[in-house]
């Protein structure tokens, strides 16, 4: 297996990428429908599905052309496509198109778990990462700490029991009258705010590695109703500090329990400045290699799906053309 076309359509990004066996990215194209969702304060599944139908053809074409390949007879060996978890109406577009391309070119395809894709993202940017590796995966849909003993060998140590971290940012941003998505807005405001302005509880202070963010959102609502004089920047800073404290506390516990060579940050919320600083500090403290993804690698992309595909082809083989989308596919069910 040498060159793989990756396709990703699990949420609001339509993406395609060409990656080779040395994890060299030849092209990576991403089209987002985020602008269509802003007014609704969250991704509208039907709008996302429609946008994927409109963009999937052009996005794949661009990825092939940018990799110097003939779009009608590309020199690729396989296709890797996200088949779950995600929005069903979005997943089906990428999966169906991937099957069409596979038929057209006579190449095999493999269905990839989106979360496993995120776990492969660091390998595309940093070749000196060593196993075992602890990955903090934080996005609008997921918050988890994963222990990787090797590529594709993962164990979920803890995950959120309610909202994902990104979801909490969106909800608090909406409450504060800020735009969607909430992460960048709050992070920006927090830079000039006072994190000790509001006393917010740090949830899940116990020793297990699960997270919880829904109580924090409620606490922000109560605190701001009571202390109307507190500036929005200070609220943002206080909220961001409380999220980071919970996440970093769990990560520290995981580091104390598991002997690892490195820590990686992955997912959309990996762009968050407080988390980046905290993870980097923890890595120095524990003397392990740290991987902070570039902004482009934080968002959903197809290069990471192709990278996971290269691995899955070797270990699990190709998928059948009858493969169904799995909107609730857990990382722990991947084998």
């Amino acid at each position, binding site marked *: 297996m040498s060159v793989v076309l990756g396709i990703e359509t699990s949420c609001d990004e339509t993406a395609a990428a060409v990656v080779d066996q040395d994890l060299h990215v030849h092209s990576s194209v991403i089209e987002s429908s985020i602008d269509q969702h802003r*007014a*609704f304060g969250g991704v*509208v599944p*039907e*709008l996302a*599905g*429609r946008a*994927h*139908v*409109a963009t*999937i*053809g052009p996005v*794949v*074409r661009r990825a092939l052309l940018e990799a110097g390949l003939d*779009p*009608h*007879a590309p020199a690729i060996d396989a296709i890797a496509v996200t088949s779950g978890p995600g929005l*069903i*109406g979005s997943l*089906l*577009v*990428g*999966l*169906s*198109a*991937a*099957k*069409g*391309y*596979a*038929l*057209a*070119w*006579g190449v095999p395809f493999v269905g990839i778990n989106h979360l496993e894709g995120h776990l492969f993202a660091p390998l595309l940017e940093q070749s000196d990462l060593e196993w075992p590796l602890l990955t903090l995966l934080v996005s609008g849909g997921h918050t988890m700490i994963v222990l990787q003993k090797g590529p594709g060998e993962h164990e979920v140590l803890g995950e959120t029991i309610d909202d994902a971290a990104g979801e909490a940012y969106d909800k608090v941003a909406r409450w504060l009258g800020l735009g969607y998505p909430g992460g960048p807005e709050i992070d920006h405001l927090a830079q000039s705010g006072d994190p000790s302005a509001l006393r917010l509880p740090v949830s899940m202070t116990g020793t297990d590695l699960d997270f919880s963010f829904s109580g924090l959102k409620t606490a922000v609502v109560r605190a701001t109703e009571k202390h109307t004089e507190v500036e929005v920047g200070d609220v943002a800073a206080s909220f961001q500090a409380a999220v980071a404290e919970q996440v970093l506390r769990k990560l520290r516990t995981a580091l104390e329990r598991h002997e690892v060579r490195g820590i990686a940050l992955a997912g959309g919320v990996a762009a968050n400045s407080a988390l980046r600083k905290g993870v980097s500090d923890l890595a120095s403290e524990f003397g392990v290699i740290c991987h902070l993804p570039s902004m482009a690698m934080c968002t959903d992309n197809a290069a990471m799906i192709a990278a996971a595909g290269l691995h899955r082809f070797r270990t699990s083989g190709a998928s*059948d*053309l*009858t*493969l*169904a*989308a799995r909107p609730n596919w857990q990382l722990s069910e991947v084998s």
Partner: protein
Amino acid sequence: MNILAIETATPVCAIALRSANSEVVRVLDEDRRHTEVLAAGVAMLLEESGLRARDLDRVVVDVGPGLFTGLRVGIATAIGLAEGVGCASVEVTSLELLAHGAHGRGARGRLVSCVDGRRGEIFVQSFELSDAVLALDAPVVRTARDVVIEWATNGVGVTFTGDGVQRYVKDFSAVPNGTILDETVPSLKAALELGAHRAPSSTITPVYLREADAVANFSTRSRQ
């Protein structure tokens, strides 16, 4: 000319293949599991016909109106196939395929094609069938009740066809000057025939006729 037709606008998933010496129509699924059967069904039909995908000259696809999820499976598969092969793609609509299907079965005069849109609504379009099939209006989404009342009161003789009629068959049976043509699946034979002659389109665009729910609710809310 080798032509593949893909039909996923209703709970039925069907395909058809026309090549130099044969024409095959195959129903793959009647239970909305389109994603599991479509690509595998196409692969099998090509193999049986001794063709490879790259031998296709045209991919014809029903772009709706119909059930959104199924439509997206059919359209995305068609995009992958046609773009991948580099062949032409041709759009046909579910409502015109029903009309051409009825025409092929001998129906003449006024015909209303109805595709079930769920939630009490159907996608409808009227046609005049003579030697040819002529569309009289554009496809719209309406309640089945409205359509029945219109035709029950205007006195014009009419034939109704499509799964939208079957869903509300009691109401449609009550139209005094109406006849029901029992057909639920848009005609694959018509898709091959129209697909062979119609100009290809550079992009394949679904006919939704309905806004996404959130958008509809949002506009209602902002108006209040």
